[in-house]
Every structure is written in structure tokens, then in C-alpha cells.
């Protein structure tokens, strides 16, 4: 499928294609407290026929506002203040209401980043797609119906007849996004605007979805304006890159050229890690053979299902070791239990069984008061920086809270320590008297880290600390974490679904699936020679930001099929058996154990241990 499409598609960059969309000096403003704030301020660019153009920029750079403005729309009370949006030779902004309505959806389709809320919650999916189709095409009821089913099938929805009867809230995020695409493409638009279409989707589905969108568009012959914050998406699907910064385009380059030689300082910043290739980040080496700082043994955590006697197996016999100054990456899809492992290690959740030995002491057995004392040594940084700081406290109070709890420092000393901490995380001391509100995600996450560092911990759980950050902030945070480890010798448990970041930051990595660790090894081992079928699938689905090895140009390995089994009724044998491309009958019957391989790698798959599964090395390592 992919190969076929790739072969058919001609690379537009090689030919002088017709211009589909031409934007000139577009300005969009919102009234805020009597002033006009202009998230889009002088935007100009072109999109050619059949071209896939990527538009990247930080959160708040005006990407979504720009996308809507291309249709002549602004989210109320915003207004398009000026400029031209030329489509097919006509300026959309000057067209009468009825004509522009006819163009929307028919000539320009759009999919947006929040598919479920963009579907009318009160209408069945099929009906909504039908309305969109009817709005632009003459068709009888049965024709509309047929078209709807056809579109749903085309975007990769199984059983479209029954899915058409579903409501938005009954669909998964990926499914809703597909329905949106079906609606956007139903009238075969000449241009598809895709505004962060995969945000909120799981890694494996993300790639699958983008593949399908790319394929479908190749078939309908539309051009795509793909808006994203992910370098991986850009590298793998786009022909040309537009960089949006402070409301205007600051760089416009073919994708390879962009990655190889970014011109604008902003582009250089977000590509810094790519160009330095991880190794130069200078991860401090770990001393081998010493006693591990922290080790969990057979950690289990179950949750009771309300109103039943059933249990959810969230974490199943997880054993990990982390040495001093070492970073262990814990990867897996959402629901794999990786976050629960982090919480259990710090007893923010009480483990159901197993031990967590920290520096020779089993934390699980500590009485609550003693555990509280230990907390200065073990810290955590959460995923959502906006949520993890008390909004009513000043930064100073936030930073001195751990000192109040664990030290007997004088007030002056605490003040001094708070200032030190700000220096440590590269933040302006002047922020100390502000409240978290109004600060950006990057700054807030640094404050979270500073708070965690306040009492000189030896170990920090980093629970997806970069996932909500914009590209630039993400780079900065990764650098900070590496630097802190180098300077302070802290150990990290780095929980993430973003393999690119894990590769930069971790010494070792463990892959989790349904509460179990299915593979552990050094980053080198796991990324270049994943042995477990699940690890292989995860790596192959990951979009590495490397335009020289584009997903759309290569063979896509077999993906996992079907849905993740419910963690309530887990299969007796291998948990992956129902989805594994390598499954044999024995897999379903035998529970799998984590078996060591050569070189310290271990894997929970008897076929991999037996060498029956090829170590898949074709990915982007």
C-alpha cells in the first residue's frame, strides 16, 4: 500500500507545480482587555498542488489561528484584520458569505487537533459526514449514505456501517480523527489543512493514522498543509517546512535542507539536539558494578474495579535497578503502567506487593512517618507543569516548602537556597515573587525540577516531563536534565512515550506493555536491536526526526493488530499474543518470563530468547 502510493506520488518539489493557496500578509487579532493581540501578524506563504507542507511552531505561535484564517474564519471574538488568502485565483477574504461557505469543506478541507470536540456530540457520525457531503454535492439520501460508508472505509475504519451510527463520545480519539478526515475529504478538496491531527494519540496509532492520511490524500490528489509541533512528523511526511514564529513565517525550506541547514535562530534551536546527535549531550558515564541506588523487586499494583470483585492489574511483577547517576528510561503506550511504577516507587501509590529498596532500605516496609522523612531523598517531577504547582503560592513559597518540611534552615538560608535553585535551573530570580499563573510550560517545569532538587535528592522520577512542552522548551529541558545529572550525580527514572527523548537522555531503557516489562537493555541495545515483538512495533511506529530515512519512502514493517486487551481480564499466556505478528499456539498457553540475553539485555518472549525472531534493526537507530 505505502510503497505503491509512494511510487505513484511524484515529488512536487522537483517540478514547478501550480499554486493552490497563496497567503499574503495575513493578520488575525483578538481583543484582550481593550487591546488587539495579534497571534497571526503578517503571514505569507504558498502551497502548491499535491504538495505536503509542514508548518511548525511553538504553542501560541498562532498556528491554529492561521489555519482557521485560511478558511476566512476566526474563533470569536477574534477577527481577520487584513491580508489576502488567494485560493484558485480568488481572494477568499473578499468573497460573499455564501460563496466562501461553498469553498469551505468542498475545496479546502480541514481536520483539527481535538477531533472529538469538533464532532457534534449530539449527532451520529454518519449523519454529520452526510451533512458535510450534502452541503457541497447534489445527492439522494441513499447516495449520501453510500458515500458516507465509502469514506469511512477509505479512512481505515472497520465496520463502517455500524460506526456510522456511533456518537462522537463513543469513538476513540483515533477513530474520531478518522471520521473527521472522512468528512474533510468527502468532497475531494484541493487542499487539506491538518492542524496537529495526531496530538493526543498513542505512538503506534499516530504513525498509522498519518500513514493513512498521507495515503488517502495521495489518492485524492489534494495538497496538505500539515501543522505540527513534532519534528518527527515533519521529517517523515512533509516535502517542505514552514517555520512560524511570532505570527509570521521565519523560514521556508525543503525538508532535507531544513534539517540539514536551518537558517533562522529559532529553527536552529529546535534542531539543536538532532544536529548534535545525542552523543554530544555528554551523558555522564555510569560506574559499573556498584550496588544499585534503587531496586524494585516483583513490584505489583492492582486496583479494585468499582462495584465488582475484579482487579485491574496495573503493574505486574516489575523488577528494576537504577544505579547512582544513572538514567533508566521506561517506555510504553498509555495504559502500560509506566506511570504507576513511578508512583509506587515513591509510595505515592501503595504497592500491592514487592519491595522498593533504596540505599539498602525497603521503603515499602517503612511506617508513614519514616517514609515522610525519606521523601527528601526521592523526588518526582510530573507531566503537567501547569497542574503541579499550587496556583495560590508564590514561586518562593513553592520552593521553600520542602525546606520547611525537611530542614531546620533559617528564613534567610531558605531564601538563599531558593535563589540558588532558580540559578540551578536557569530561571530569573525575579520570578520568585510571582505566582505560577502566566508562566510558560517550560519555566513551570523548571520550577518543578527546582522544587524537586531543593533537598538534594538522590533520585528523581521524571514522569513524562517533556510531553506538553513546545519543541524549543523541550530541547532546553533535556539539556537541563543532562546537565543536572552531570553536576549533581542524581539518578533518574525517565518515564516517556517519546523514544526520541529517551534516546537522548537515558543509559538504560525498559519497555512496558500491560503492566509488565517486556524488554530491558541499554539504549544502544534496545534501539538498534529490539528483540521483543512489542519493542519492535513501538520502535517502528516511532517517527524519528530524520528526513533521510522517511517513513513514506520505506517499507513499513508489520504493525500490531487489534486493540490492547483490557487489563481486567488478562490472557493466561503472553499478553501480546492476540496482537503479535509472530504468535504461535504455544504463546497463548505459556505465561512469559523476563529472560536474560547476552550483554545484559533481557526480554519477555520465549521465541525471541530462542532466537526465532529477528532482531529488527531496520529502524532509525
Amino acid at each position, binding site marked *: 500500500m505505502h510503497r505503491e502510493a509512494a511510487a505513484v506520488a511524484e515529488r512536487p518539489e522537483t517540478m514547478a507545480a501550480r499554486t493552490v493557496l497563496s497567503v499574503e500578509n495575513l493578520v488575525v487579532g483578538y481583543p484582550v482587555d481593550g487591546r488587539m493581540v495579534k497571534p497571526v501578524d503578517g503571514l505569507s506563504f504558498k502551497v502548491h498542488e499535491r504538495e505536503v507542507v509542514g508548518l511548525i511552531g511553538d504553542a501560541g505561535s498562532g498556528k491554529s489561528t492561521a489555519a482557521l484564517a485560511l478558511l476566512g474564519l476566526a*474563533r470569536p471574538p477574534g477577527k481577520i484584520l487584513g491580508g489576502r488568502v488567494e485560493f484558485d485565483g480568488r481572494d477568499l477574504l473578499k468573497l460573499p458569505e455564501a460563496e466562501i461557505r461553498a469553498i469551505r469543506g468542498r475545496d479546502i478541507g480541514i481536520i483539527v487537533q481535538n477531533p472529538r470536540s469538533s464532532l457534534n456530540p449530539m449527532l451520529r457520525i454518519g449523519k454529520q459526514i452526510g451533512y458535510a457531503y450534502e452541503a457541497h454535492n447534489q445527492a439522494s439520501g441513499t447516495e449520501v449514505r453510500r458515500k458516507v460508508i465509502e469514506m469511512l472505509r477509505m479512512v481505515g475504519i472497520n465496520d463502517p456501517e455500524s460506526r456510522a451510527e456511533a456518537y462522537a463520545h463513543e469513538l476513540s480519539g483515533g477513530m474520531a480523527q478518522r471520521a473527521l478526515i472522512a468528512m474533510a475529504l468527502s468532497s475531494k478538496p484541493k487542499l487539506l489543512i491538518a492542524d496537529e491531527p495526531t496530538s493526543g494519540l498513542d505512538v503506534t496509532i499516530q504513525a498509522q493514522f498519518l500513514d493513512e492520511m498521507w495515503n488517502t490524500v495521495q489518492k485524492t490528489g489534494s495538497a496538505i498543509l500539515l501543522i505540527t509541533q513534532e519534528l518527527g512528523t515533519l521529517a517523515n511526511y512533509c516535502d517542505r517546512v514552514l517555520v512560524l514564529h511570532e505570527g509570521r513565517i521565519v523560514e521556508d525550506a525543503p525538508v532535507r535542507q531544513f534539517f540539514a541547514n536551518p537558517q533562522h535562530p529559532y529553527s536552529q534551536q529546535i534542531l539543536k539536539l538532532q544536529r548534535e546527535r545525542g552523543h554530544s549531550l555528554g551523558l555522564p558515564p555510569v560506574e559499573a558494578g556498584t550496588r544499585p541506588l534503587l531496586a524494585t523487586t516483583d513490584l505489583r499494583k492492582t486496583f479494585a474495579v468499582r462495584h465488582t470483585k475484579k482487579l485491574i492489574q496495573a503493574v505486574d511483577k516489575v523488577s528494576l535497578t537504577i544505579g547512582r547517576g544513572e538514567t533508566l528510561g521506561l517506555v510504553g503506550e498509555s495504559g502500560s503502567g509506566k506511570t504507576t511504577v513511578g508512583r509506587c516507587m515513591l509510595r505515592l501509590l501503595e504497592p500491592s506487593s514487592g519491595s522498593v529498596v533504596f540505599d539498602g532500605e525497603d521503603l515499602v516496609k517503612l511506617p508513614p512517618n519514616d517514609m*515522610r522523612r525519606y521523601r527528601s531523598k526521592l523526588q518526582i517531577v510530573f507531566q503537567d507543569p501547569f497542574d503541579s504547582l499550587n496556583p495560590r503560592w508564590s514561586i518562593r513559597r513553592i520552593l521553600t516548602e520542602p525546606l520547611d518540611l525537611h530542614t531546620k534552615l533559617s528564613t534567610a538560608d531558605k531564601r538563599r537556597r531558593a535563589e540558588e535553585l532558580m540559578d540551578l535551573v536557569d530561571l530569573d530570580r525575579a520570578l520568585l515573587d510571582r505566582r505560577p499563573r502566566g508562566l510558560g510550560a517550560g519555566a513551570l517545569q523548571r520550577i518543578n525540577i527546582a522544587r524537586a532538587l531543593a533537598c538534594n535528592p538522590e533520585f528523581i522520577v521524571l514522569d513524562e516531563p517533556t510531553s506538553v512542552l513546545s519543541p524549543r522548551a523541550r530541547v532546553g529541558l533535556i539539556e537541563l536534565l543532562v546537565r543536572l545529572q552531570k553536576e549533581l550525580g542524581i539518578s533518574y527514572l525517565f518515564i516517556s512515550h517519546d523514544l526520541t527523548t529517551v534516546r537522548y537522555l537515558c543509559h538504560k531503557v525498559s519497555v512496558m506493555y500491560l503492566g509488565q516489562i517486556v524488554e530491558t537493555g541499554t539504549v544502544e541495545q534496545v534501539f538498534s536491536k529490539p528483540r521483543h515483538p512489542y519493542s519492535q512495533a513501538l520502535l517502528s511506529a516511532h517517527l524519528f526526526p530524520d528526513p533521510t530515512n522517511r517513513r513514506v519512502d520505506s517499507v513499513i514493517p508489520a504493525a500490531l493488530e487489534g486493540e490492547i486487551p483490557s487489563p481486567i481480564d488478562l490472557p493466561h499466556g503472553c499478553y501480546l499474543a492476540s496482537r503479535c505478528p509472530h504468535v504461535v499456539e504455544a504463546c497463548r498457553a505459556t505465561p512469559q518470563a523476563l529472560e536474560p540475553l547476552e550483554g545484559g539485555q533481557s526480554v519477555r518472549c520465549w521465541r525471541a530468547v530462542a532466537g526465532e525472531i529477528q532482531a529488527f534493526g531496520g529502524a532509525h537507530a
Partner: protein
Amino acid sequence: MSSQHTLETADMLPRRRRDWLFGLGLTIVVIVVALAVVGPYIGPYDPTLTTPNVSVPPPSLAEVPGLFSAWISGTLEAPPHWMGTDASGFDVFSRVIAAPRTDLVIALVANGLSLVIGVFLGLIAGYYRNAATEFMMRVSDVMQSFPVFISAMVLVALAGRSTTNIVIALAFVYTPIYVRLTRAEVMSQKVRGFVEAARALGNTELNIAIRHVLPNSLTPALIQASVTIGFAILLTAGLSFVGAGVRPPTPEWGLMISTGANQIILGEWWPSVFPGIAISLTVFGFAVLGNALERRYDAS
């Protein structure tokens, strides 16, 4: 952040207009609060002493300037009855401006009482969810399902007409609202990251509940309070109107409307109309303020 801010405050009216309305509301409330302090002392007549002049109509608008200058220059024997007098001979104006002392104090104390009790119970019920707090919520449900006006009326009428009993009755009907609001907010706050972070830092649960969860759970209750003050004034006046409110001759707007009500059908409108305007504006003022607070909260 800023663009998000823009989107969510979209419902806000443009600034100038908001200020105009907000200014009006604030002015009204400030005046009423000021009258609650000094109102009983600044009127031309004692608000609880009758004058021999019964059912005197207010001066017509045309007469007002002349009367005013005569009054200022001291040529009048007695101050004019700006709003007339009622059937007992009370000076309506003096009573209208003395009434906030009664109405506002009842509304504030009742609200404060139910706010404190409600927030306390709501915090406990939201933070510690067990059989006892669940039972408490069921009791609160039952209390909340009481028909507001009738319950207040029953309570005051059977317990006896006194300011204290009115306050208790209002607190009784309002407390469950605060319990519920606070509990819901506590439940959504206690799973937030900063609470878990506080736990990870080694705070005790009590500390977390009081220092982290409580301050962040107060807003809905406080907004509700700003709205409820207005409604408490309405309820107080309504109780007086049906004869289950404060005792005469306490200057109280509802009571004044009620005593004037019998006369209105005979054309004596002033004893009821002036206090009515006072209630109308006061409650409106509080509604404007409450609304402004609500918007600010929604926006953040």
C-alpha cells in the same frame, strides 16, 4: 497561554461596558454597606419612632428643590418627609436608609455562617470519603431538597420571629449548597498534580488538606457567597412580607413593603415603592458583583 486566555474570555463583554456596569454595582454595594454602618443615625427622623403625620405623600418632583433649599436654610420647622410617611406615621426615607443595618447584616451573617460550616464540612466530605461522610452528604441532599422559601418560613414562624432565627433559617437552607460546592471542588482539586507533589514532598494529609486543597477549593464557594448575599436579602424581605420575618418596627425593606402593601390598592404607593426600589437596586448590585467575580473565575 495568552491565546488560550483570549479564547476562554471570549464571553466577556468589552472592557468599557463591563466597567460601567461593574462600577454601578460596586457603587450600589458600597452605598448599602455604608448605610448598614451609619444608616440608622443619619436619617432626618428616628426610624423607629412615629411622627404625628400619618400617610403623608412624598413631595412631588417639582416641590423637591424648593423644599430642599428651605430645609437647608433652616426655615422649616421639621425636616420634610422626602419619601412620605406610612400609615403609622413613620418617615419612610429614614427607614429606607436605616434598613441595610437589618437586611445586610442578616444576609452577611447567615452567609458567613453557612459558608464557614459548609466549607468545613465540604472539605471533610470531599477529602475523606468514607461511610460517615457519605451519610453526611445524604443528609445534605435531604436538606438541599427542602423547598427553600417554605422551609425558611416554617423555621422562622415556628421558632419565633427574631433576627437570630432568620439567620439560622437562612444558614440552614444555604449550608448544603456550600457543602456540595466545596466538596465537588475539593474532589477535583485533591487529584491535581500539586497535591500529589505536596505528598511527594512529605506533607502530612492534614497539612495537604488545609494548606493546599482548601485554599484552592474556596473560589466556587466564595463566588456563590457573593451571589447568595443578594438572594439572602430577597429571602429576608420575602419572609417579612409573609409575616415570618423581623419584628416591626425594625426598619427592614420587606417589612416596609408588607405594611405598605395593604395601602397600595387604595393608591398609597409610597410606603411600599421606595423600600422596593432599595431592595431592587441592592440585590441587583450584588448580582453584578457576583457575576463579575464569576467571570473572573471562569476566565482563570
